[in-house]
């Protein structure tokens, strides 16, 4: 039975879609059977990030409305064995599907796939409710900005209220030079406030923008630091213990690791 993981954040533009694409491709590279569901109906872009836009025939709303079979709407990514995408509808809105429908969809996909990754839209309304409905676990994405951390906090509260226990935190777009100057919140500061376990830290990396524009997730790029971070995160998703990427490029890594993973939710 597969596992349904929702990737959410509250705030827009912090890296949910990027994270979904990279973890998805990362898991497929490690031989897992993975499907990515874009629930950002009306503002779909997971297909673009995956470079699969021109192959869309049916979308998630068509599946829900019975206009096609689920199998017909799944787009197979030819580059990575075992990776599929269920795209969002672009000309509909978030109210076109309901949480019970999502639960049913996830249950169906669970039988076929090892991992079902749900890319959640920004906000806390209908789109969010749909995205979390069928989820077993949640990753909360934030950037080291006060407003993003506030929204992450709110989202964690809502996830807990919806019985999605112990969500994991992904901190994206960290710039170690800025943290050192005291111009950016540190990882410790963020964990201190959010009080949940970390799944990983991804540096701010221009390779992400390049790879996004090319439609090739950075996780496949061995030269990209963000790609390395996503490879590590992928392994952690599969239950391996992998030390945090050292964004300083120097020692002190082990002690930091212990500190970060030692923190338990209050």
């Amino acid at each position: 039975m597969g596992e349904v993981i929702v990737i959410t954040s509250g705030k827009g533009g912090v890296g949910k879609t990027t994270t979904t694409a990279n973890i998805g491709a990362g898991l497929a590279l490690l031989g897992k059977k993975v499907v990515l569901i874009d629930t950002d109906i009306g503002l779909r872009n997971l297909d673009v990030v995956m470079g699969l836009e021109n192959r869309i025939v049916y979308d998630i709303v068509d599946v829900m409305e019975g206009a096609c079979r689920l199998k017909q709407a799944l787009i197979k990514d030819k580059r990575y064995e075992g990776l599929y995408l269920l795209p969002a509808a672009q000309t509909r809105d978030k109210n076109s599907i309901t949480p019970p429908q999502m639960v049913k969809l996830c249950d169906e996909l669970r039988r076929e796939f090892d991992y079902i990754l749900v890319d959640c839209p920004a906000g806390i309304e209908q789109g969010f409710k749909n995205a979390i409905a069928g989820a077993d676990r949640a990753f909360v994405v934030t950037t080291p900005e006060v407003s993003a951390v506030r929204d992450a906090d709110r989202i964690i509260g809502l996830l807990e209220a919806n019985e999605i226990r112990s969500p994991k935190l992904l901190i994206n777009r960290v710039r170690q030079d800025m943290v050192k100057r005291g111009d950016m919140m540190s990882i410790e500061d963020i964990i201190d406030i959010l009080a949940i376990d970390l799944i990983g830290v991804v540096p701010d990396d221009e390779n992400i923008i390049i790879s996004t524009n090319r439609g090739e997730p950075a996780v496949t790029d061995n030269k990209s630091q963000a790609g390395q971070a996503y490879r590590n995160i992928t392994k952690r998703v599969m239950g391996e213990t992998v030390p945090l990427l050292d964004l300083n490029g120097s020692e002190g890594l082990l002690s930091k690791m212990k500190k970060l993973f030692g923190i338990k939710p209050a």
Partner: protein
Amino acid sequence: MEEGRGIVFKGNAEGLIIVIPQGYTPEEIMSETEAKVSAASRFFKGAKINVAYRGPKLSDEDEARLKAILDERSGAVIESFSRQEESDLPPKKAAPAAPSAGIRRFFTSDINEDSCKFIRSTVRGGTRVEYDGSIVVIGDVNPGGEIIASGNVIVLGTLRGMVHAGAAGNRDAFIYALSLKPTQIRIAEAIARRPDDSDDHVLTPEIATVKDGLIIVEPV
């Protein structure tokens, strides 16, 4: 339960209720009320209040004695004095009083005895907890989280959000936190916000109270 606690003073926005347990002799009632009123006189001073008592019916003579004790010892002007019948209604509303400073609200003198709500998790942004009594949070209160209590608020963690203690008007309420970095705190009608240049790394527990109408924060 009220029994077994002796005579209890209950305050609310309208006035004061004296709860007398069953089985008290008039002498016990008089002496205990006198002691309590004297101890609490600084809360009553200069105010006008309506008083009611709950419990066994007193003779007219004892009622008059009780009122006399309140008149003499409380330092307040007792606008009315009556027995509250079975119904749980508060004493009747004070006559519309002179502007602001003239009105004072009433509370049990002993805020150290109060019902209490415990919260055993982080109060995250977007969560609001209200309680008629005191609130203890075992965890943090994050920015955007709100705690509103008529009594005291104790945060056994970091307070980063908003707390209103003494929310019904009690200026004797306090706010205590292991780490006090709130967006804003309020006690009764006093409001304090975090200084823009505040030091984020205070690691000692602190307590906020009201002195001369202003909120002051001190290490404990």
